[in-house]
């Protein structure tokens, strides 16, 4: 199955990855090749088969509601790209 240019652009937007105009054809070809591989799945009869999200039949463990994490802001922001007064700075958010 081949993947349209328009679709690549949509995927790139959803994934927030800038795609270079000059490589879009190449990206499209390679993605199509991978989709060709995964399309083998379509021929499999999976009627009545449960979906499997986890390899183990385990159940979620629950944590007691007690504070275990204390303020570590300085350490956690040590490699942050840009901070001010303890806030992470990003280009202006427009809602």
């Amino acid at each position, binding site marked *: 199955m081949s993947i349209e240019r328009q679709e690549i652009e*949509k995927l790139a937007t959803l994934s927030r990855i800038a795609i270079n105009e000059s490589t879009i054809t190449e990206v499209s070809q390679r993605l199509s090749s991978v989709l060709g591989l995964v399309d083998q799945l379509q021929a499999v009869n999976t009627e009545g088969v449960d979906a499997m999200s986890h390899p183990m039949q385990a159940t979620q463990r629950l944590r007691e509601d007690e*504070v275990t*994490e204390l303020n570590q802001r300085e350490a*956690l922001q040590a490699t942050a790209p840009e901070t*001010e007064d*303890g*806030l992470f700075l990003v280009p*202006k958010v427009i*809602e």
Partner: protein
Amino acid sequence: MSWDTVIGLEIHVQLATKTKIFSGASTAYGAEPNTQACAIDLAMPGTLPVLNKQAVNYAIMFGLAIDAEIGQVSAFERKNYFYPDLPKGYQTTQLEKPIVGRGNVEIQLADGSTKNVRIHHAHLEEDAGKSLHEGNFSSKFSGIDLNRAGTPLIEIVSEPDMNNAEEAIAFAKKIHSIVTSLGICDGEMSQGSMRFDVNVSVKPSGTDILGTRTETKNLNSFKFMEEAIKREVERQIDVIEDGGAIVQETRLYNGETKVARSMRSKEEANDYRYFPCPDLLPVIVSDEQVAELRRNLPELPDARQARFTQQYNLSDYDAGILSSDAAMAKYFEAAASTCSDAKLAANWTIGELSARLNSEDLSITNSPVSAQQLAGLITRIADNSISGKMAKEVFEGIWAGEGSADEIIEARGLKQVSDSGALEQMVADVLAANQTMVDDYINTDEAKRKKKLGGFMGQIMKASKGQANPQQVNQILAKKLNELL
């Protein structure tokens, strides 16, 4: 042409856990930015979530309160989108298997009627952080505070069972009342503890075809919600009557400017690519766990209302108001149990106290007048030590921090004169000083005499500087004047 309105609500309720839903960082409100955002909340590489037991219990408690099915197996999904206040780039939420299934909430309307609102489901999820647009940084930037990120929420999704703003508000208030009564949410609207998304559509009266709906997001007060609904209904009717069509969209209502605007609907906006979260396993709720929570479920508003009418002999209306707010109910009961007059305690709690708190924008838990202090005041009203007018003055004194009712009465010399000897003398003096009025009283006919009594009362109260017990004065005055007839 007349129109019917159809309203459904999605309510985000912050759970009153000590820690985040997936980390051991504190959820306390108002901390310095990012001091309560641990490595997990910041989505640092390699960190993993572990589910908070209390959050699960709180969600189940809500389910029990609305008589809902509790999901024996519930699961978490990832909802993918990029936003600076969403550190992982996905929100961990529940889609296919929410923890709380279908339930019902009964609301009471102003005309005394009741209505059932169906709950579609309620699910657990994590809150996002906050983007700040002003601070000690260049206006090119926004500042991101992730203290709130990971705070546990339940999102309660109603069926579109409401038909006007009044019903929607009643429903929202009822949910507020339930979650605060359960103690699973602090109910502090101003801190964002409850936020409402309102789905509104209109259709020609009497038809079954649902109109296109819009969603107005993130309303954080009942007042804004009411305004937003009314304006949106008007807008939709205007659009349709002008021959236009309603666009399905998300809208933001600004409570300050009272204007709602459409959030640009990006083409991809709805592709959240939900899939099961591989870092979390299915949550199994056992029958024992549910039974245990059911056994320990706090009193719910409806039950409390019934109890208040019986136990304190209150009207349905008063009991309804007092029981709707867990903190107010607690306050009332504390006051009522330390004074002799529950009815007075109810009146004061609903009346003077609530009005004063509202005007100062305070919650009852932060009331400057404690339940014990109010009880002290009520005791003095009930035993006729002070008049209703003096009581207001004493209340202001307590509010201002001048001490207990008795201390203020003493300090200001407000004690009501109830000594009959002193009052007899006072009445006699006034009658003696106003012979013309007395003659007038004697010479007029029976029907008009009652009116004239007021004139003597005014003189006597003036003479006593307001401290005479009016009931007693009334009796003495009537007796003395009758003797002259």
